[in-house]
């Protein structure tokens, strides 16, 4: 984490990331958080490597009408080494990245998920005042340990509703419009999906919740 040494303490946002992350969210995190004085650190499980490169979900390029991978990010921060008190909050990036971060080589019946990211979340979500944000498909990481979701008011992409409900999450709906755009349940801030300006609202809301304490 040498690249972060000069940052003032308690002004950082950690974003959990893996392959197939949402590129539109990534670009907005990098634009909006620094503009409001927050540094964004990307965090993942590096499997013993010093760094790891991840690519965004392929998206249709209107110029060529072909799918292409737009973004690559090199992550140097290992999730097992993260000190919670260095951060104001953590965001779980959308698309398929969080499905990958919950991988455990040997799931054991009756034992909560032992992937580094889920173990990290269990610790983070027990820390009062530490904000956790999810958007689109990223509640998958919480579905891996239903104790993290049971009874929590949340929102997510339409595809995810059933996984979240099966894990005991209480998805909030906006009438016939499907899941609500944003839901705040104490330290857990959830957003529906990165379209219709929701990512911007999510980032604004996340900052507001951090600054409210």
């Amino acid at each position, binding site marked *: 984490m040498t690249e972060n040494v000069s940052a003032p303490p308690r002004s950082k946002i950690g974003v959990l990331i893996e392959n197939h992350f949402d590129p539109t969210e990534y670009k907005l995190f990098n634009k909006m958080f620094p503009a409001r004085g927050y540094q964004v650190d990307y965090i993942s499980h590096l499997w013993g490597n010093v760094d790891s490169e991840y690519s965004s979900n*392929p998206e249709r390029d209107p110029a060529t009408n*072909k*799918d*292409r991978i737009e973004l690559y990010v090199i992550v140097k921060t290992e999730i097992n080494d993260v000190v919670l008190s260095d951060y104001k909050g953590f965001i779980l990036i959308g698309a*398929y990245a969080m*499905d*990958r971060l*919950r*991988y*455990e*080589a*040997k*799931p054991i*019946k009756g034992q909560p*998920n032992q992937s580094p990211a889920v173990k990290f979340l269990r610790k983070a979500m027990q820390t009062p005042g530490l904000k956790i944000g999810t958007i689109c*498909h990223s509640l*998958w990481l919480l*579905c*891996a*340990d*239903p104790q993290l979701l049971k009874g929590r008011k949340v929102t997510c992409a*339409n*595809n995810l*509703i*059933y*996984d979240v409900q*099966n*894990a*005991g999450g209480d998805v909030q*709906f906006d009438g*016939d419009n*499907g899941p609500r755009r944003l839901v705040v349940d104490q330290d857990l801030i959830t957003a529906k999906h990165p379209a219709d300006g929701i990512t911007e609202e999510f980032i604004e809301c996340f900052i507001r919740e951090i600054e409210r304490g």
Partner: protein
Amino acid sequence: MKLKGKKIAVLLESDFCEHEIWYYKFRFAEEGAEVVFLTRLWGHPSLTFIGHDHQVPFLCDQSFENMEDDQLAEYSAIIVPSGFVADRLRYTQDLSKLPPATSFIERAFANPSILKGFICHGLWLLAPSPDLVRGRKVVSHNNLYGDVINMGAQFVDEDVVVDSDLVTARTGDHCHLFARKIIELLSDTKVLQSTRIPTMSATP
């Protein structure tokens, strides 16, 4: 030609795993089966989907929507493949109804003579209707372990698991073992018959 005269459906959407889909296309055909790729066409005559690993296009022009019961009964097996096919297929705007792909697979569950196959991330399609797998023996990609337990299924730590008319496999890299098991089950009716539970009800 162990599957002569049999028809096998593979559900398709974008983010499929190319090697796996091509393997089914030729391996089942090699045994004499007709392999049909079904999707939700959203009113289009055809849709071209893009593969997960190599962005390879795959054209699909047959829909599972509005399929008559007798057409459905022509199928010996319905396969929900790897990648993010199942997550994409369960997308629906009208949340008052099940996603059309889940309704379709629910109808297949109501017919125990149709073998239902799910591999890797395929079981996501059943999340909107978890009663279909509650208490049943399955395997999935390890990433889905929590989702599958949350559906009430029984996770068996093997690469291929058979529970009567339900066959599941761990990852796309096990597609050959999965296909071999499907061929074995379909070519010996006694195997499927002897392990089959009496009748599955589609609606709770």
